């Protein structure tokens, strides 16, 4: 069956530009997560949705980061006024009823 999909897979942005990263979770998965993964490190939690409700956004590094999931399915992570330190892989995961988090392939963001 279809897994978690993310688009674009690669994004190059000039410093100061806004970007929007999309996540399509596994159909029927209620919970959706965003993580940030720097090169050579493990993913770090950004935010969590249950249906359309954003229940935890404690990991968002600044107010330039914003996530939404208006209809409880597709989610978008938006980064405003990108900076070089935002360069990373952004991973989306959705969770099954067995509590297993399944990850998408990620979007590699490079800010120049």
């Amino acid at each position, binding site marked *: 069956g279809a897994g978690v999909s993310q688009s674009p897979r690669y994004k190059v942005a000039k410093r100061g530009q806004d970007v929007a990263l999309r996540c399509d979770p596994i159909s029927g998965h209620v919970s959706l997560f965003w993580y940030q993964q720097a090169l*050579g490190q*493990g993913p770090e*939690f950004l935010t*969590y949705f249950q249906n359309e409700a954003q229940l935890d956004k404690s990991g968002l590094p600044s107010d330039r980061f914003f996530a939404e999931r208006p209809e409880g399915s597709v989610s978008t992570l938006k980064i405003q006024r990108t900076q070089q330190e935002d360069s990373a892989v952004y991973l989306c995961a959705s*969770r099954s009823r067995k*509590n297993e988090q399944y*990850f998408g*392939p990620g979007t590699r963001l490079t800010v120049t």
Partner: protein
Amino acid sequence: GESVGLHLPTLSVQEGDNSIINCAYSNSASDYFIWYKQESGKGPQFIIDIRSNMDKRQGQRVTVLLNKTVKHLSLQIAATQPGDSAVYFCAEGAGGGNKLTFGTGTQLKVEL
């Protein structure tokens, strides 16, 4: 967890040997633990999980051991194959696993 930047701990094993990857976790309140495999350019792939009321769980060719006394987790891979070459991360969650905290990855290299 400790950050090792670009220099991940590496475990090299011969094809057919057993591999043991270790992880120390930090949060005594964690009650859910997962091992993920991440290949280059892909998102983390779920391997096996264990809850804190267990100390051992077996899957296909993999076994996870949990020692809560010393906050230690290990992943054993039997008869390691070239396809097992990847970075392996442990992750911990508390209170239902909504937010996963990932440990430092270990690069597993399988030599023919």
